[in-house]
């Protein structure tokens, strides 16, 4: 009976030993993978930023300053979103918004929108979406060129009342079968341009301040 009584304790020790080994194995793997995963994430951000810049700026050694701004009405999220201000020796060259289109068909759509200093769109890409496969997923440039129609558009061209899809008497093509998705993206691009117009000087000032404080990081 002494044997039977010692069972729970022995069992607990054995399980604890395995738990310690498991902890160690996960720790070792985490240490090994941590840097690689961070590098992957940085590579994706840089590739993403490059994809929404004017072709002439892609791959150039620009200083990237990361700001966080919040505007639930225009930037689609209650929480702060990332804004990258890209400067060349202090001169602003481009601004990239990691904004949100809140009214996607299934969920909010995460977008990357590049805006030139004069307020024109230099590129829009979808970062993450849950739109219907085969319909709404045409917003992904891997599936269709629909997103490219925003390039070179600005708040004045087309005029604000034409910043809508054809079905709403606007100028933009809609993805057939995905009107809700198209409407959400057009609205998000327009709102981002509105935000940029209202806050451009403030964003540039904050970026310059951050650069002077030495917190700027190369891309």
């Amino acid at each position: 009976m002494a044997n039977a009584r010692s069972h729970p304790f022995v069992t607990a020790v054995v399980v604890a030993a395995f738990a310690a080994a498991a902890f160690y194995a996960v720790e070792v793997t985490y240490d090994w993978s941590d840097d690689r995963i961070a590098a992957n994430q940085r590579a994706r951000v840089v590739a993403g930023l490059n994809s929404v810049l004017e072709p002439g700026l892609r791959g150039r050694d620009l200083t990237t300053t990361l700001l966080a701004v919040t505007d639930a009405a225009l930037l689609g999220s209650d929480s702060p979103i990332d804004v990258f201000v890209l400067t060349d020796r202090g001169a602003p060259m481009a601004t990239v918004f990691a904004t949100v289109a809140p009214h996607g068909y299934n969920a909010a759509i995460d977008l990357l929108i590049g805006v030139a200093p004069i307020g024109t769109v230099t590129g829009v890409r979808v970062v993450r979406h849950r739109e219907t496969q085969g319909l709404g997923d045409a917003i992904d440039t891997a599936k269709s060129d629909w997103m490219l129609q925003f390039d070179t558009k600005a708040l004045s061209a087309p005029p604000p009342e034409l910043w809508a899809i054809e079905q709403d008497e606007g100028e933009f093509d809609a993805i057939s079968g995905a009107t809700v998705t198209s409407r959400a993206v057009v609205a998000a691009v327009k709102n981002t341009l509105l935000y940029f117009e209202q806050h451009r000087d403030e964003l540039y000032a904050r970026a310059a301040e951050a650069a002077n404080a030495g917190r700027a990081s190369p891309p």
Partner: protein
Amino acid sequence: MTPTTSSFREAIAPLWRDNLALAQLLGLCPLLAVTTTVVNGVALGLASAAVVVIASTAMSALKRALKPAARLPVALLILATLVTVVDLFSEALFYDLHGKLGIFIPLIVVNSGLLAHAENVASRRSVGFTLLSALATGFGFLLAFVALGAFREIVGHGTLLSDIELLAGESYRGMRLDLGVGGVLVAILPPGAFFGLGLLLALRNRLTATKPQDRSSSGTPR
């Protein structure tokens, strides 16, 4: 039939006759969710196979050291550790593919079929039998992923092996085949997963039904 042959046949039964997905209908959630392309299916199938092979073999090797009360917690610990390692590993090496498979890599840990193998078979059988049986289970599961993924990708996208570069490296991008047919949208939507699975089950039943003598040996009653 000699004992060696019959135990060999029993060990490889999960490859087809007792296939985890197609016969036991276990692990269907990831199977239905990720098989929009072959490459997605292969990736998750391989991850599941690696986990069951290592976990079951380890459990079989440890069976004398473990009291029955410790077996289940240790099996869960081993499975959870392996899945975490596979998850981190794939995020480090196959970042884009990892993003596509999303939650289904961590969820391998709750695949009851794999746990049952690591707990049941491993506790009763020799290391060699368990290893063979785990390989059969893993590759049988992978077979279901490949079959369903291929069906849905051909019918839904009209391609085969798209995104292969995410798994095999950039130099394999050219392996993608454009078949010029398909584009039947429903195949890649969730209902298409069920239609595809139904067709696969029907095909499997048809093939099994023509060989009734194969069903005589032991196996889980259904």
